[in-house]
């Protein structure tokens, strides 16, 4: 038995050593000025972006095989990195994981197939594009956030004072404490879940074809809420005050316009065949 255990342990160590040998960690540093742009394209693997606190872009790329190489380029204030797939690359052996530090006002573009894509504590524009990656963004302010995904789930947390534009064909979109001058989320079959107070100004458009829309709001929310579902139905747990004069045709159970408090923000919740549920926090 002891010999068997020793053999297993030896095998485990050998596997770990082999795996570590296959990994290759590279670091790149770029000095940039204010308002720089950083673009990273990575088919397989994660990309994580955080602020650097300086006029520096620092990229740590972990490459897992020799079937992929990192192409990096700086032209003035523009930094581009791309995972270049070589012959024989597969989704398994072409994986690269990026950890990126950028100036907080940098404009960042991330593109991936498998992801995940993560960004936090930034103030510049952020453009995320993915087929099926998990997208997680938190603690953003002032910038323009643009997310496009085919079926990956999207979670935005604590995003304020900017523009938010999310297109997710079938992935679930979750917004937690997200406010802005314009917040637009469009989905075909994905659900849209909002938890927040819709700010004290702004235009919020959450629409899905067949996905459900659920908004959970506190009692001090100030908004005009337009809810419309052609074939689905509406549930209003907040008991909005009906708005009499409105351009939207109101129909019991499928379209309704109401206000809460001073109606500072304009909120449109629209779905064709999904359910719309306005909940009280």
């Amino acid at each position: 038995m002891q010999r068997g255990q020793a053999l297993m342990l030896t095998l485990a160590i050998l596997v770990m050593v082999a795996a570590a040998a296959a990994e290759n960690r590279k670091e790149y540093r770029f000095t940039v000025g204010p308002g720089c742009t950083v673009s990273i394209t990575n088919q397989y693997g994660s990309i994580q972006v955080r602020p650097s606190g300086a006029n520096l872009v620092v990229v740590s790329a972990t490459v897992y095989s020799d079937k992929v190489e990192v192409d990096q380029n700086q032209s003035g204030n523009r930094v581009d990195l791309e995972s270049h797939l070589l012959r024989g690359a597969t989704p398994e052996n072409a994986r690269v994981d990026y950890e990126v530090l950028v100036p907080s006002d940098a404009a960042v573009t991330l593109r991936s197939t498998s992801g995940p894509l993560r960004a936090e504590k930034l103030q510049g524009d952020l453009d995320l594009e993915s087929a099926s990656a998990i997208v997680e963004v938190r603690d953003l302010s002032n910038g323009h956030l643009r997310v496009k995904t085919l079926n990956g789930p999207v979670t935005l947390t604590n995003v304020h004072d900017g523009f938010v534009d999310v297109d997710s064909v079938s992935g679930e979109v979750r917004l937690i404490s997200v406010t802005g001058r314009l917040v637009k989320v469009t989905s075909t079959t994905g659900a849209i879940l909002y938890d927040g107070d819709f700010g004290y100004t702004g235009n919020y458009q959450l629409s899905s074809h067949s996905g459900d829309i659920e908004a959970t709001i506190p009692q001090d929310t100030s908004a005009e809420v337009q809810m419309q579902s052609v074939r689905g139905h509406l549930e209003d747990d907040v008991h909005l005050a009906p708005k009499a004069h409105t351009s939207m045709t109101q129909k019991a159970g499928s379209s309704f316009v109401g206000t809460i408090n001073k109606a500072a923000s304009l909120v449109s919740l629209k779905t064709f065949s999904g359910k719309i549920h306005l909940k009280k926090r």
Partner: protein
Amino acid sequence: MTCAELRRELPELLEGDPSAKLQAHLVGCGACSELVRNLETIIREARSLQACEEPSPRVWNSIEIALRQEGLIRQPEPKGRAAFVPSLARRWGVAAWLVPSAALVLVGAFLIVGRQPRVEQLPGAESRARVQVTSRVDVTDQQLLEQLALDAPLMKAAYEKELNNVNEYIRDAQNLVDENPNDEGARQSLMDAYGQKAVIYQLALDRSLP
């Protein structure tokens, strides 16, 4: 025999087989006899030309004279009298202006009709038009899926599923617009639906993503 009749028989004359009438006309008509002489000179000189030699100026003069006598070339028009449609006017007279005039009328009619509000179409016509649009969309979707099958075969099934869902979204939104043509919200829904389709195409065709 008239001069016009002689011109019709010129090939026979030049081949050395003139009719009696033709020969009699040449005796009495100075213009035709000069034409025949010039043409014979051209033929004679042409036989003596070498492959790389430039014809002598006399040959070109003879050709020009013959062409002028045929009416195929004219003296250049004096300045200030350039015709807008010179050759047409000379050939067709007043009728030459009918064609450009008709074209102007047609263009004007097209512009006027184009500015008018859209005439209500028969329901059948609209349905046929929408079916045609749908067919074009389906063909494009098929081309996209075929390309994906080559470039990213693992993703083809996912894209196909999403395309079907989005096409259903577009159809529902279109129906809503048809039922409520003045509803701004319905039109926005249709734009959103097409926007979703655009996202699918963009992700699929992005050459940096497999």
